[in-house]
Every structure is written in C-alpha cells, then in structure tokens.
C-alpha cells in the first residue's frame, strides 16, 4: 500500500512523475499509443487524430482559463489564425510542414497578445465578451481578405509532407499529431514547475495578492494569452492539415464554447483535465451514436434517437457540473487514491 509520495530531495520534488509505478504506467500508455494505429480502423484513427488536436487546443485554453483564471471565448479565432497561416504558407510557398506549424503557432500567439490586452483592465465575464470579439474580427479577415485567404470559399490545403512522405491518411497523420500532442502536453506540465507557471497560478488565485508579492500582472497575463494562443495556433495548423480545407466558417464561436466546456468538464487547472475533457467532448457523442446503433429499434433508430442522444450528452455535462465541479480529473484522482489507500477508504 502506498499512502503518499515521500519526496526526499529537490530532484524528486521536481520530477514529472512521482513514482516508479507512474513511470511504468506512462510507458504502458506510450506503448498503447504506438500499437493503436495498427489495430484501429479508419474511423477510430480519425477520432484519435481529432482527439489529439482537441487535446492540444484544450490544454492551451486550460493554461489561460484553468491556471491563470482568464476566461476566453476566442480559442476558435486563434485556431483559425493558425490554420490560415499554415494554409497560406503551404499553398503559396510550399514551405516545410513543421515550419508552417510553428509559424501558425507564432501568428496565433501574436493575435493572442493583442486580444489579451483588455485582460489588463477587465476580467471574468467582461473579458469573455472581449475575447468573443476576436472571433468576429478574424472571421471578417478570413472572409474579406480574399486575395490572401480565398474569401468565402476558403482554401484547400495539400497534404503535409514529412521526410518525403505524404501525410494524406489518418494513419499517417496520427504519427505526427500524437507526438506533437504529447510534446505539448509535457510542455504545459513542465510550465507549472517554473516561475512563469507558478506566477500564473498566483494570478488566478488572487491577482492583487500576486501583484503585492511582486508578480507584474501585465507581462504575465499577456504571456498566458500568448502561450495559450500558441497552443491554439498549432492545433489550428494541425486542423488545416487534417481536414485539408479551411473556410471562414470552420472556426465558429461554438467551437470556442466546445473547448471551454472541455476545460470545465475535464477539470480546470489540471493537465489531465485537459486530456479527459477533450476526450469526453469528442468521443462521448460518438459513443452515444454507437449505443443508439446497437439498440434493436429497426431502420428508424437513428432518426428517433438522434435528438435523445443530444439531450443525453447535454444532461451529462450538466450532471458533471452539479456533482463533480472539479471535473473528470478529480474523479480520476479519487480512483487513483482508492487504489493507493485500499483497503482503507479515502
């Protein structure tokens, strides 16, 4: 029985994983991720890629909302900036895939810094409304700057190429999306072991106290917006390569709400929450579809149960908020504690 993580050195305190079993389980997870594409069909590979890029974007938003306490409804706009940057670079200049992704992240980051400026004066719902404006502005830009963005029709993106291989199937894209996702999740986890990450948390907990403690609010808030939108930009870039089409209407406000819901359902202020939230929001509607498909209700099952499925999904979100406001990450933490402390109760 393990009743806690005894840390006897600074090195142990700084380690990403608390214990050897954790490291072993992470190894198992990596092996599963490597084996998955060889066992899954096209549908599950598609969903895995979708989950991967949603995890990147949700992690980015969690850095901003969950860790820094700055509510944003502009995540889709930043994804759009990343996606269009990648599309333009790929279509017009045929520049390398990874460079395009990086550029997508940087352009989104610059957009994030601009949109983050009001966060110095307003917060909470007021900031949320201010960030919604980002969506309107980017939509206008994408739709009307037709010479660059292709206007209403958007842009068709050729498949990404890496080391001469064309990434034109979900199977091939998986090998790019999954490592980038792991890298970015680790990046976020590491951030909170640095001065910057801890400053974000201090700002979230009480910004005035943070300022009194000597944390300058302006640079850190803008830094949080920058990092968060960099994540969104990279996710948007992956989106462009994944769907191969970007249009002004690919990044609606509803998409930002989707990511905010993923952060809340997964667990605000936890990295695992970002992962659980993105998985939940992407896969639960699909799983509900599968369940509906299994029910022996004849040809009209889809027609009859589709609205019911939507209601069930909505209700699940509401129930989570009522009974587990700390999200899926908290449930996961309790499950882990149950095993750690068994046969004692938590």
């Amino acid at each position, binding site marked *: 029985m393990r009743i806690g993580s005894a840390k006897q050195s600074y090195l142990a305190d700084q380690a990403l994983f608390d214990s050897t079993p954790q490291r072993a389980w992470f190894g198992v997870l990596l092996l599963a991720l490597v084996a998955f594409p060889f066992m899954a069909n096209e549908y599950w590979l598609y969903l895995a890629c979708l989950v991967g890029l949603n995890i990147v974007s949700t992690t980015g938003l969690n850095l901003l909302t969950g860790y820094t306490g700055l509510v944003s409804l502009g995540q889709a706009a930043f994804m759009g900036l990343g996606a269009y940057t990648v599309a333009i670079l790929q279509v017009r200049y045929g520049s390398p895939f990874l460079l395009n992704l990086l550029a997508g992240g940087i352009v989104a980051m610059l957009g994030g810094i601009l949109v983050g400026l009001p966060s110095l004066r307003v917060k909470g719902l007021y900031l949320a409304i201010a960030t919604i404006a980002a969506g309107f502005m980017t939509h206008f830009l994408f739709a009307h700057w037709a010479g660059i963005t292709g206007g209403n029709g958007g842009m068709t993106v050729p498949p990404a190429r890496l080391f001469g291989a064309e990434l034109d199937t979900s199977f091939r894209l998986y090998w790019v999306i999954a490592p980038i996702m792991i890298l970015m999740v680790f990046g976020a986890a590491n951030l909170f072991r640095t001065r910057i990450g801890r400053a974000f948390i201090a700002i979230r907990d009480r910004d005035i106290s943070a300022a009194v403690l000597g944390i300058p609010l302006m640079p850190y808030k803008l830094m949080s917006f920058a990092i968060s939108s960099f994540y969104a930009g990279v996710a948007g870039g992956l989106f462009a390569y994944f769907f191969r089409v970007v249009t002004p209407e690919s990044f609606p406000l509803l998409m930002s709400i989707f990511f905010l819901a993923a952060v809340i359902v997964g667990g605000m202020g936890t990295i695992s929450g970002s992962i659980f939230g993105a998985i939940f929001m992407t896969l639960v509607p699909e799983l509900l579809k599968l369940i509906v498909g299994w029910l022996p209700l004849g040809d009209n099952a*889809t027609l009859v149960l589709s609205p019911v499925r939507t209601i069930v999904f909505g209700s699940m979100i509401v129930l989570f908020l009522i009974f587990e406001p700390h999200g899926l990450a908290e449930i996961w933490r309790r499950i882990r504690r149950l095993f750690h402390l068994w046969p004692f109760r938590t």
Partner: protein
Amino acid sequence: MLRTHLKKWITSLAVTSVLAAASSAWAQEDIVLGGSIPLTGVFAFAGIGIDAGIKDYLKIVNDAGGVKGRKLRYVPEDTGYKVDASMAAFKKITSQNKVSLYYADSTGFSKTVNPELERSGAMLMTGASFGKELNDPKKYPLQFMVGPDYSEMVGILLNYIAKAKPGAKVAIVYSDTEFGRDPIEAARTSIKKLGLNLVTEIVTAPGSVDVSSEVIKLRRADPDYTIFHGYILAPIPEFVTQAKALGMKTAFMGTFWSMDNSTVMKMGDSADGFMGVMPYRYYYDTDGKSPMLEKIRQLHPEYQSTAYTQGFLSAMLMTEAVKRTLDAGKPLDGKNMKAALNSIANFDTGGLIGTPITIKGNSIPVGRIYKADMKQKKMLPVSDWITLEQ
C-alpha cells in the same frame, strides 16, 4: 499420366467453381448508400425530410427487385450539421461498409471530404449543398448536386424578372455567411447582362430580427423585385411585414431553402405573393404527368417537404448512375458512376422536375418560379420551367 490430367482437371474445376461462387456472391452484394444526415441541429428540418425521401425511394427500388438483382442499402448517421461529425460519420460508414454512393449534408463537408473521395475513387456523392464552388467537375469530379447551384437559382429568378419587367430595379438581401455570399458575384454579372438595374445590396446577420434600418434602406432604393438569399426564414418575414406596412410594392423572392411550403406559410399573411425558384414540383402539384409524385402521395397522404423531394431525387439519380454503370458492365467506382450520371440526357424524373433533365456537369440548372397563395396555403407556378445553359 491420366491421374495427372485428372488432378489438373479437378483442380481447375474447383478453382472455377470457387471463383464462380465468389463472383455470384459479389453480384448479390448490396449497393450501399451512406449518408451524413443532419437529423439534429439547425438543419434538422431539412435532414429529416431528406432522410425520409432517400428511404422511400430505396424501398421502391428494392421492392421492385433492386438494381440488376442487387439491393440498395441505406446507412445514415446523424451529424448535427457539423463538419467534424460529418467526417466522423463518413469514416465510420466507409470503414464498416463498401460504400458506392454517399449523401453529404453541407458545403463545408462536401469540400472537406473531397480529397478523401478522390483518393478512394470508390464513390459518387451528392448532397444538400447547392454551393457554386461544388459546381466544378474538374475540382469536384465525383460530386454533383440535385438542382441548380445558388448562382443558377438567382440566375433563373433574374431571367424571369427580365422577361416579366425588362429593365426592372432589383435589390439583393443576403446573409453574411458563405451560404449568403455564394451567388452575389454571379448575380451582379447577370443583372448587368440582362439589362436589369441593381439598386441596392443589403447584408444582414443570418437569422437577424431587427431589420428596421435595412427596410428603410430598401424603401429608399424602391426596387421592383427584392431577392433574398442565405436564409431559411428569419429575417424574411420581418422584411416583408415592415415593407408592406410602409406601402412598398416590391415583389419579394427567395431561393430553394426558404421556398418550402411550410416555410413560406410561416411567414404569415403579409407574405402573400412571395415568389421564388423551386427546382422540383411541390407535393400537391397535380399540373402535368407526375407518376412519381403520385406514388409519394400514395405513400404519404400528408404534405412532404421539398427537402424530402430533394432526398428522393438524389437517391433516384444515384440509382440511375448505378444502373447505367452496371448495364455497361463496368465496375461500380466513382469515375464510372459519374460518367454514367453525365450520360443522362432528357431524363424523365417521373414528374418530380417538370421537364426532362440533362446532366452535363455537376448541376441541373433548371427551376420554376412559384408564388405563394395564402388563401389556398399553397405555392402556385407563375412561370414555365426555365433551363439555364450549362
């Protein structure tokens, strides 16, 4: 020696019978029509009709023995009118079935799925989109639309206007969406070409409610005809009611998705005389010979929407492409089926479209102008069938 010959003979007989059995099994294999159908979400009103239309037509075909003895099997998935969900549905359906035909729910999905469609080369696709961009056989070689594209719809309206009132003043009101902006450039060109006079263009948010300032702008322009595009219902009723209250005499017009009988009737009494382009005959249209409409009326005594007709006709044309491909002894792949579809000339849709159709490219540029009669609660034809040159 004899034993060796006998062995060879038995082996070849066995191989032949296995191949024959396999080919006979293949011959009996169902032809699958997959569908990303919006049964929930903002487009569900149409999706439910489309779903019913496809199901009914396939039932008629299957009850009559299928196509060359092969049954057609419909595999739909709800998408909620979201592109990622539509793609997931596509992947799910195509990874679990050998799909030959597919129904797509939106312009966004049709564009997104196109590289995948071309890569597999196995399917022929149609759908709910009438986006002008899809009407390009080079860019979208395996897709087509069951009717005119949005630019052609507005073109049909403008042709009617030019004939009814040469040199008429025209206004266009459209939503600030991809859907709304789709035909505007082409409309400007057609207006000029037909000698009409474009007096104003008004852009609104989709589904906006307060349009009083836009109505004042419209009154100032004083058009003879006002064409709405990019809306289903709102803000058309607000425009029509306020314009009538201001004493305006302009004739209001719409395109396909705002032209269903139930949609127009929801606009209220002030929409009496509302006109628009419709590529299909309405459910209750008894004008001319229409055995397929008769069949639909027998199946459903109650009104069936124009979305239903769209789904029904989509299934009919895809089935026709399958039939022609199989008749020619060619494999059922996207390229062959598209070529078979494009070989359709002067085809009788059983009266669903009131004139024989020819499919050269990716659209069927034909339509008729109907006008709302609020007393009868019906859309009545005010023009003959208008076919644009492809």
